[in-house]
């Protein structure tokens, strides 16, 4: 019969589309390694691991929002406010309590996002887009207001020794950086959460078909508030890792994190339409985004050109997602 080879080819194409990002990563590594041997140096490896930090946490949180069929543009505002407030609290209540407060604050901001959306009756991604964009402005202005907008530098500003921040910044445990271990921890927990728990499944149902999930007895409103809270929390983790990394923290420190996180999630193959995707895919997406920057930097690609490539990749990823959908 003639249909066998065709089905085989179809299956191959599907497989390729499904794991395209993996192939791209491998190709990118090989090409860059050949053109620029520095890429494989131990120093570059450490460098890559460091960059994995803040974005990966934000992207993990964003995964749940997108799988649930929503979107969160308030990330930059949340990062600013969490970073600034946490740093300001260090002198008052000490380093660890300040970090703890930062995490609670992040979750609280996420909760406010989710609740606002539900109160406003925003049940589509488009509405969420606008509302969370507005929230981001509010959070950033608040950050400016609360802290006076002074740039802060934990290395010189504070009397306290900040061991945790230092560890997050440059500490190693075995072959991997401490922040990478923290990342692996969250990855594992969130992976199990999504695939094994009822709430994790409920998120997928909500993203798959909000109306059907609601009528099927899934508490969709609570699910939405939950994913925003979770995202807020993960953003706070990212914010803390972020300020440990940068020398100076200013209120605009979170700029573009929403874009890169959404990009990482979508490039990984999680569908913007909701209901499909997981954190492992996001890891692939983050890896690609980071590798890409790293390679382009090593190869001496100009910043503006890099932006163009980044934009193109995002468009490409959304297009691929669309095709997968059309195909079913």
């Amino acid at each position, binding site marked *: *019969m003639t*249909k066998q080879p*065709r089905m085989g080819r179809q299956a191959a194409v599907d497989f390729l589309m499904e794991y395209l990002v993996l192939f791209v990563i491998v190709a990118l590594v090989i090409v860059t390694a050949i053109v620029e041997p520095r890429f494989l140096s131990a120093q570059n490896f450490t460098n890559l691991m460091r960059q994995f930090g803040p974005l990966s946490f934000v992207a993990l949180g964003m995964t749940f929002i997108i799988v649930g069929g929503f979107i969160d543009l308030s990330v930059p505002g949340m990062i600013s406010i969490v970073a600034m407030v946490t740093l300001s609290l260090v002198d008052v209540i000490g380093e660890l309590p300040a970090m703890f407060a930062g995490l609670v604050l992040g979750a609280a901001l996420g909760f406010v996002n989710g609740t606002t959306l539900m109160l406003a009756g925003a049940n589509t991604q488009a509405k969420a887009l606008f509302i969370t964009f507005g929230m981001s402005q509010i959070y950033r202005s608040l950050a400016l207001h609360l802290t006076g907008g002074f740039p802060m530098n934990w290395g010189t500003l504070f009397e306290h020794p900040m061991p945790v921040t230092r560890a997050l910044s440059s500490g190693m445990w075995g072959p991997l950086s401490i922040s990478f271990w923290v990342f692996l921890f969250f990855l594992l927990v969130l992976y199990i959460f999504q695939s094994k*728990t009822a709430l994790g499944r409920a998120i997928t149902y909500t993203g798959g078909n909000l109306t059907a999930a609601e009528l099927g007895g899934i*508490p969709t409103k609570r699910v939405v508030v939950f994913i925003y809270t979770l995202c807020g929390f993960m953003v706070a983790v990212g914010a803390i890792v972020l300020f440990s990394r940068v020398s100076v923290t200013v209120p605009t420190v979170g700029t573009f994190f929403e874009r890169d996180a959404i990009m990482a999630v979508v490039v990984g193959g999680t569908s913007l339409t909701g*209901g499909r995707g997981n954190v492992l895919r996001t890891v692939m997406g983050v890896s690609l985004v980071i590798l890409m920057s790293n390679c382009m930097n090593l190869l001496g690609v100009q910043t503006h050109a890099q932006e163009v490539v980044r934009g193109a990749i995002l468009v490409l990823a959304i297009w691929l997602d669309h095709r997968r959908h059309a195909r079913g």
Partner: protein
Amino acid sequence: MDNSDVILSVQNVNKSFPGVRALTDACITVRKGTVHGVVGENGAGKSTLMKILSGVHTKDSGTIVFDGQTVENTTPIQSIRSGLSIIYQEFNLVNTLTVGENIFLGRYAEMNGMRNIHKNARELLDSIGSKIDTHKMVSDLSAAEKQMVEISKALSFNSKLIIMDEPSSSLTADELKQLFVLIGDLRKKGVTIIYISHKLDEIFELCDTVTIIRDGKVIDTKPIAELTRNEMIAKMIGREIENEYPERPHAAGETIMNVETINTRKLKNIAFELKKGEILGFVGLVGAGRTEIVRAIYGADKAKELKILINGRKVKIKNPRDGMRAGVGLLPEDRKLEGLVLPFSVQANVIMSSLWRISKFGFVNASKEKEIAERQIKSLSIKAPSPHTKVKTLSGGNQQKCIMGRWLEINPDILILDEPTRGIDVGTKYEIYLLIKRIAENGGSVIMISSELPEVLAMSNRVLTICEGRISGEFNPETDSAHTIMDAAIG
């Protein structure tokens, strides 16, 4: 056979999907200017064949000749432009655009501006006797109006062949009459129609010729005059059935639910009782408020006033979860939009409402999950290659069974079925009637809404007629005539 009056000839077409052989050596010859019926059970392959014709799916082998041209790998656009249009079971319109924009979707440039679009759309709609405003949003249209728009769209391409895949499933009796008149007109103009339906009455009334498909094979093609209803059913399902309805149960006991009052913007002082083990039918025109009543009871819509006693106790129902907790289940009217998560598996769809019941400490018990899916697939004989098959690839009847299975697993005291047999074949309908009967005999109560009067009358113990948001009468379908009941429903 004189070839000149053959518009479409399908020879030995085969099509397989992973795990399913959807069509085996299908052959159909359709003559110009006829209405050609296609019948067959759910999953027989009717829609698949039509989707091959319209270029949505590609055939594995076989030949198709349309209007004298051999058709190889066509695309939906090409096939429409060549004069073959299809109106799908689920409409294919963009809700956020106007009627005119939908009719000429993707052809704005060739239409020279919006004014022309609306002008031409007006002419098309007029030509089929429809008065829909071309500036109206599609989301504001009724199912019948959407169908008119689809037909106008087909006509705008000068279609020679229009395929209608279950066009009647969401129409009222009056709208159906209009559709029939329209189809008659089209036939006079020389347009050929392929008409797919599970409602055999329609097939007999409308079609010149009928093709019967079973399990992906064409069983027979005959002029309608040479077939009886029973012969047709026998060919469709491969065996004879004596009755289309089982004998109704008589298991009604004491009152389980007392709806004291429901008031919403549309509903006025709805009050009725439901007995344990009773099958209560709601009869009314589409838009009369039948769906609104049951949605309010289940908590799917907000009501201004909602007073319900279940087992003598007042219940507060604010959302579907409250409804579920109070022991109510709802099989929604539109299974694709409101019932199923189409890209998910059969298993995921069946266990949806049981999610928390099969979880311990928040963790889903994977073996229970599998057990539920397998149990319901077996007991409802859902035709799917595996529990992991996506429901989107199932035929309509099997999709409906997935939602049924979801509720049977929860086993609510009161199960509300809103159009449970829409788009479902005769054989499966009978299975669903038996299911309803079994639920009632086991002490469950059923509220059944259906636009097919014979079905409600044959299954219910008691019938309420709903007219313009009010209950206009209560009848015993075993003693009152269909005529009296319909009169009360029309108001």
